[in-house]
């Protein structure tokens, strides 16, 4: 009798896990709460640090999943998980031999940082908005004219105790750099300022991109967190920060303020953590068995993790974890039969 694995979440990690399982002759079902596969990457335009279109990563992956004949159940949201089953919101219970949780992360809701005026002033955007506008092919101000000055603010919803987000979301620094370069390419006359607390360029080619942004794209990096944004008389925004490197307050008006929003733990993590043995780390992400050899294992046998459900990760890391989780699932199932 063939074994069945349920994969919770059809983002890149989930799809890769399904494919890798298939490669080992194990069937799986992807349970995806939205109506399409791909997760948040569907809304992304280009990927750092190479400016590869997200579709070039997602397209082949989706096709492969389709070709492999993996069963995909969209519009199905998992409510509870257990090593042997997944309970859907609809009340249906799917039985399984193993469960891989790839439910990803949630984007931080920038409205919570009221002082930046997201949702209050028209010219405050999030990085997700920028990607959406890029996908729609039109980045422009509400009035339709080109921005003369753009400010990016790093760490919105990351490393911020005031909003209960102590962790670093890792990928936002490089996202901010990437988008700053994209904006500079779109609007060469525009001045782009990135306000940061620390710049954390952890990945291959990231530091190089950062330097390129500084040196070739003339993007200004100011170390200091914007404290507040307020509207100006001419419909722009005034922002205030401290230029901590010179120890002086700094203020300026901008046409666009882009909040580089972080990753917060998926809202479903709490529900999944009700499975005995499964638990969340203090930052709300699911805690793996250990951070080294067991990064894709939950403390419960039969429940596996892959991707950003355990911590902020980039696309490549999430996919690698998908493949690695599949390997560990196969070992687990093999040992049981």
């Amino acid at each position: 009798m063939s074994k069945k694995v349920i994969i919770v979440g059809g983002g890149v990690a989930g799809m890769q896990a399904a494919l890798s399982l298939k490669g080992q002759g194990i069937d799986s079902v992807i349970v995806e709460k939205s109506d399409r596969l791909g997760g948040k990457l569907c809304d992304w335009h280009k990927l750092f640090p190479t400016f590869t279109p997200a579709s070039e990563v997602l397209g082949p992956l989706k096709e492969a999943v389709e070709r492999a004949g993996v069963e995909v159940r969209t519009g199905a949201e998992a409510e509870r998980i257990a090593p042997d089953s997944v309970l859907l919101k609809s009340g249906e219970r799917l039985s399984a031999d193993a469960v891989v949780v790839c439910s990803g992360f949630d984007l931080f809701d920038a409205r919570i940082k009221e002082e930046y005026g997201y949702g209050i002033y028209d010219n405050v955007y999030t990085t997700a908005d920028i990607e959406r506008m890029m996908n729609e092919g039109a980045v422009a101000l509400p009035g339709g004219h080109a921005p003369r000055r753009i400010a990016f603010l790093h760490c919105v919803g990351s490393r911020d105790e005031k909003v209960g987000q102590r962790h670093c979301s890792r990928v936002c620094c490089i996202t901010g750099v990437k988008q700053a370069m994209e904006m500079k390419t779109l609007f060469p006359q525009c001045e782009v300022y990135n306000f940061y607390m620390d710049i954390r360029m952890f990945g291959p080619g990231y530091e190089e991109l950062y330097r390129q942004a500084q040196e070739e794209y003339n993007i200004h990096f100011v170390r200091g967190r914007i404290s507040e944004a307020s509207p100006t008389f001419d419909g722009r925004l005034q922002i205030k920060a401290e230029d901590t490197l010179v120890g002086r307050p700094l203020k300026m008006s901008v046409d666009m303020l882009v909040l580089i929003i972080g990753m917060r733990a998926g809202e479903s993590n709490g529900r999944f953590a009700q499975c005995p043995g499964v638990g969340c780390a203090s930052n709300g992400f699911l805690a793996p068995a250990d951070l080294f050899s067991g990064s894709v294992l939950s403390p419960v046998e039969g429940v596996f993790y892959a991707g950003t459900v355990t911590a902020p990760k980039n696309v490549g890391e999430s996919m690698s974890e998908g493949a690695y989780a599949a390997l560990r699932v196969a070992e687990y199932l093999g040992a049981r039969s």
Partner: protein
Amino acid sequence: MIQWGYTINQPRAVNLDRNDLTAARRIIRQMPELQACIACGSCTATCTAGNLTQFNFRKVHTLVRRGEYEGAYEEMNKCMLCGKCRLVCPRGINTRGVVMLIKRELGEY
């Protein structure tokens, strides 16, 4: 005549709307690598002049890039051009060239 006993303090904020950034842009155009400064401060740490006075190369050029030119020329005149900063700069910035450039561009401030 009222004796106030105080005067109105001028704002300390670097106001990028009011500052004239023309000279800063000119400097960056001639020395784009200056933008690559990550403010590690090793230049200031090793600075021969900085060990004898308050001179802080990193701070001065950062202020200049923000359009705060006042005093930059005088500050840069404290530099001895010995070149230690250039040897320690992890980003390979031509620091001595920056000193010369800022002095050349901001002589009138």
